[in-house]
């Protein structure tokens, strides 16, 4: 608990900034929904969308989601905020929390205290999960409030729930990868470029998979595709296989982090 408390204090500001800025952004976007949906009935926006190239529409789900529905509007306009930026937030947090001690050479101080490596990791990984959970909780609450304020008709709340659950799983998946990478790469700059690069590549894969039929298989390699908003809204569920892959990745990622860190020679 000592290390957990310390990390809580150390990471509080960043949690606050990320949560507030993302949820505020979502709130702003959602506040435009009413005027947007009114515009929709007047054909003008639909005409505008017609003019978009097919690829672009496919990439962002514009061809399959109905923007006049609040869930569809959220899926197209806001979902990316939470998934992409949230994944970056998760990576920044998970990639640095363990490696920072080595990069800043404070690990010799910490390891000289009566505390096991396993205890250090449990606290730090526990905090990563806790903060990602809080980040998603804050976003979900703000989004829910926005939905309730700006809705023009009732919406399917179970789909809303899935649209909130998906990003949480996505963030935890990326976080577990970030933790694992940070056991091997401890230079803060290097780990940030590797882990954020990974997020962007995964995001890119999910876009490509939407556009090109030939490259559709790429969606199996991108967690972003696992929780695709179009999929969730049209099918009303998360794919079981993808769900299992994410849970498996989280467990294996964290498990390997423990395993390798425990055996690791810590030289600074």
């Amino acid at each position, binding site marked *: 608990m000592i290390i957990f408390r310390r990390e809580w204090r*150390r990471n509080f500001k960043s949690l606050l900034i990320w949560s507030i800025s993302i949820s505020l952004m979502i709130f702003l976007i959602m506040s435009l929904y009413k005027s947007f949906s009114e515009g929709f009935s007047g054909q003008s926006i639909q005409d505008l969308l017609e003019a978009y190239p097919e690829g672009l529409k496919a990439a962002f789900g514009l061809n399959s989601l109905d923007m006049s529905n609040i869930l569809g509007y959220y899926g197209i306009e806001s979902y990316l905020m939470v998934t992409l930026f949230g994944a970056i937030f998760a990576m920044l947090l998970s990639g640095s929390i363990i490696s920072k001690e080595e990069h800043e050479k*404070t*690990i010799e*101080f910490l390891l*000289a*205290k*009566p*505390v*096991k490596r396993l205890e250090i990791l449990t606290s730090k990984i526990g905090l990563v999960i806790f903060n990602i959970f809080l980040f998603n909780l804050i976003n979900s609450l703000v989004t829910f409030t926005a939905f309730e304020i700006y809705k023009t008709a009732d919406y399917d709340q179970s789909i809303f729930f899935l649209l909130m659950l998906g990003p949480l799983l996505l963030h935890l998946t990326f976080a577990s990868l970030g933790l694992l990478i940070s056991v091997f790469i401890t230079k803060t700059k290097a780990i940030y470029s590797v882990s954020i690069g990974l997020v962007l590549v995964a995001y890119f894969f999910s876009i490509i998979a939407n556009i090109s039929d030939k490259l559709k298989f790429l969606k199996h390699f991108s967690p972003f595709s696992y929780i695709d908003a179009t999929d969730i809204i049209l099918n009303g569920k998360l794919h079981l296989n993808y769900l299992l892959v994410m849970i498996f990745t989280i467990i294996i990622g964290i498990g390997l982090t423990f395993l390798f860190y425990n055996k690791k020679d810590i*030289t600074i």
Partner: protein
Amino acid sequence: MKAIEIIGLNKYYGKSRGIENVNLSIAEGEIFGFIGPNGAGKSTTIRTLLNFIHPTSGKAKIFGLDIVNDTKEIKKLIGYVPSEISFYDDMKVKELFKYSAQFYGQNFSERIDQLVEIFEVDLNRNLADLSFGNKKKVAIIQALLHQPKLLILDEPTSGLDPLMQSKFFELLQKENQLGMTIFFSSHILNEVQKVCHRVAIIKDGEIIEVEEIEKLRKRNYKKVTLELLKKQQEVPFQIAGMTNISVHSDNTLISFMFQGNINELTQQFADIQLKNLWLEEPTLEEIFMHYYEQEGAK
């Protein structure tokens, strides 16, 4: 029970050597010096003892506890001052002490006050703003807070001014009298000599000598360098106690290590024509070389 017992300890980083077949036994209550040039394996030995790195083979125990399996128990009993000191840059000095104390489930406020007074540390300074010397002091204090039974110091005096060094040595001796065992690594023989009872000398990853400091002192080596007026192929004289004789390239400079009757040596000087003469305390490096060559000769 031994404070530290190291048996056949090896550490390789991949293929490169860390330490080889290190054996050491340090009794409770000793102040033990661990000297060697940079890169000899001092820090590797210490980091293995603290389980920052895992031994390739061999065993070591601290107060009878295994360094790998019982590392948490061991750390309740030891304090450690690393050679390179870095602290959390978002903390103040007092916050670090508080954080440190929490791991022992106490607050040590009296002890902190005492130590802060001795070392003249400002509790309200940010750790990020401290000079190297002040960081060292903070590191020493945090290692002493919980009154460890064993204190492990890796190059502790670098960065301390001479006044602070002597205060520090005073404190070490006081704590030692109260029962603290001290393991003191350094590359400066001189400072080890001041406080230690015994020393081990490590070179190229191997312990080449373990000796009582008294005996080491009695050896009283001098490094002698002669500059002759005339070129000479041979050393002009040979007496007992001369070792490591070397004639330098221009054949006028001759140097050797001398351990023996200094009067016999000075008599020899009378018979030769000198341009210059140096009588010096050997550097640690030279003492190592000396041991090393003797080892080779055996």
